[in-house]
């Protein structure tokens, strides 16, 4: 299993859609074969279409607000006394998280395909909120599938979705979180694929959805590359790019331009959700030894039992609370290009507290997992090491959880 140079990772799959011969694919019911094929052809065409690219860039710049800033966290750096800590503040993007890239691209594709309805899944509510924003912007009718547990714990995002005119469909099956929302969304698409476009909220699901999402979030690393060159004159010698990983869309977007670099120069570190400290449940298929399984149309490392039943997961962060992960991250893990670890709920909360105490930054619980790792390793590293954390979401949505756990107002 080997990575290729000079080819975007989203295109490094074989003809059946597998990365490294075993991750990804399209395990879908027959009914979805045609819509998936149509979408695949459309995307193939659109990504080469200059007009479409111009449109994308226009909305990325004027609607999403590209580029998001790249800043040094001086106080945190001084406090930890080791590597320099920087942040790519992706949460500045319109809506408050990276999910807006994928949502905007899907809305544009939906329009191009002449469909009037768009549906999507959401965990933390960001994917749903952004899709509802994009739908409103482009005049599409929007339905968002969301686990009942997540609706309760991420209320601010639900309010935003409703305000944007989207219908939230609560999902009561299974663990009532993201995994069930994705299943229900796919079921809805099976029944309505003739007039409805589906947006999968992360780099998961059947092959084409992994590709579209990765293609969209790649904007993050394109910006970062330019920003690194302008800040340091050239790409620095020792960089660590730390990103949280749930489905893995922000991590892929943060890394995509840097995968070809030697890992000694640019290390890629993915941080999964370890769940509550004493709980056996976690959402960390890459860092806590799981087997390959099929979930939501793709093969990836999956939290599952011996029989192949998908495990319930538990994490304070709804956005990372997912038993599977992008096939591209499985490929990056097995080729050893990226390193994956996890942070517990408590570590993420501590990191959130520390970052907000020292910096004018308010990372949501998802990137707080990445900050936890940065805080852990920074003191041990040399001062010329550049740690960059993708602060991919804003903590406004976590208001209720933070109040309960940290007594924050």
């Amino acid at each position, binding site marked *: 299993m080997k990575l290729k140079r000079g080819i975007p990772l989203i295109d490094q799959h074989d003809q059946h859609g597998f990365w490294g011969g075993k991750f990804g694919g399209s395990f879908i*019911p*027959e009914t*979805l*074969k*045609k819509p998936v094929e149509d979408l695949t052809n459309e995307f193939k065409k659109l990504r080469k279409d200059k007009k479409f690219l111009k449109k994308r860039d226009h909305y990325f710049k004027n609607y999403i607000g590209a580029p998001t800033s790249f800043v040094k966290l001086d106080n945190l750096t001084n406090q930890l006394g080791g590597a320099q800590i920087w942040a790519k503040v992706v949460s500045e993007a319109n809506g408050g998280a990276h999910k807006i890239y994928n949502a905007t691209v899907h809305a544009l594709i939906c329009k191009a395909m002449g469909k009037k309805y768009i549906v999507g899944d959401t965990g933390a509510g960001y994917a749903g909120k952004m899709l509802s924003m994009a739908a409103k912007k482009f005049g599409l009718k929007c339905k968002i599938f969301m686990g009942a547990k997540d609706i309760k714990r991420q209320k601010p995002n639900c309010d935003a979705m409703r305000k944007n005119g989207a219908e939230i469909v609560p999902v009561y099956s299974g663990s009532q979180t993201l995994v069930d929302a994705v299943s229900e969304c796919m079921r809805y698409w099976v029944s309505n694929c003739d007039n409805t476009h589906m947006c999968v909220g992360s780099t998961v699901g059947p092959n084409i959805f992994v590709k579209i999402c990765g293609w969209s979030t790649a904007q993050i690393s394109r910006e970062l590359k330019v920003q690194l060159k302008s800040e340091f004159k050239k790409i620095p010698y020792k960089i660590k790019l730390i990103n949280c990983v749930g489905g893995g869309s922000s991590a892929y977007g943060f890394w995509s331009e840097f995968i070809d670099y030697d890992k000694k120069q640019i290390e890629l570190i993915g941080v999964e959700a370890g769940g509550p400290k004493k709980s056996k449940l976690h959402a960390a298929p890459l860092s806590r030894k799981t087997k390959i*399984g*099929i979930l939501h149309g793709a093969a990836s490392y999956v939290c599952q039992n011996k*029989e*192949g039943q998908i495990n319930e997961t538990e994490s304070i962060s709804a956005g990372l609370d997912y038993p599977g992960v992008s096939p591209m991250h499985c490929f990056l893990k097995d080729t050893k290009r990226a390193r994956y670890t996890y942070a517990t709920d408590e570590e993420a909360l501590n990191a959130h507290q520390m970052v907000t105490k020292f910096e004018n930054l308010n990372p949501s619980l998802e990137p707080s997992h990445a900050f936890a790792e940065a805080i852990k390793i920074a003191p041990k590293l040399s001062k010329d090491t550049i740690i960059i954390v993708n602060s991919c979401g804003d903590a406004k949505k976590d208001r209720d959880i933070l109040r309960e756990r940290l007594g924050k107002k």
Partner: protein
Amino acid sequence: MSSLINQAFQNAKNENRPALLTYTVAGDNTKKRSLEILKSISNYADICELGFPHNTPIADGGQIQTSAYRAIKNGIKINDVFSIAKDFKSKKKNKPIILMGYYNMIFQYNENKFLEKCKKSKVDGLIVVDLPYPENKSFATKCKKKGINFIQLVSPTTSEIRLKKIIKDSHDMIYYISMLSTTGGKLKVSPKKILEKYSKIKNQNKSKNVVIGFGITEKTIKSLKKADGLVVGSAICKEISNSINKRQNTVTNVTNIVKRLKNKIK
């Protein structure tokens, strides 16, 4: 020699009616009870589909999800599914049984081991919901080598070219999904339209047995009786749920509904 599945269709044809196929979930609501249900309904059903439950079933509607979750909660394991099938076949050796489920369960068990176990339990066919053509080619070939029918699915969205290829690669039976829906949806397409598409499939190769499934209930079954076979799943699973809720005998109630379904297509 003709497969038991083929024979079942032939028997129905001789009686000038479509074959009746039932779907129940193994272990719903207990291992023992699901076997009893299976044995009892097979007096009226021509072919029995037995679901091996998965907890992330992306193509199933509410009724079958409920049955699957209930079975898993009551501890059903894949080896129990095989033992139910085996026990069933030891009593009803000429009644074809088809296992149906999602690929991850087969993948975790190991394809070859799974098929070996199918053969030992005398399973006649397999339906794998999320392993479409052409990705299923190698697995379908393995099935054939073991004398197990791999049943291809086709749907209203299946293109003409694809349809030709799928039929060419199919074994004795083809499953036509009546409409864009998960299992148990309300029949939203007119029976006439469904039968038109059905004929298109049938005309490609008359020797293949084509069944129609999804949305078939006591109300709708009669209107589709021209087909080679008709599958009823959700309506049966719903009856199991109802019977449990009303604390009534599931075996009797489910048998009665299957009996009524059969009478409607005679």
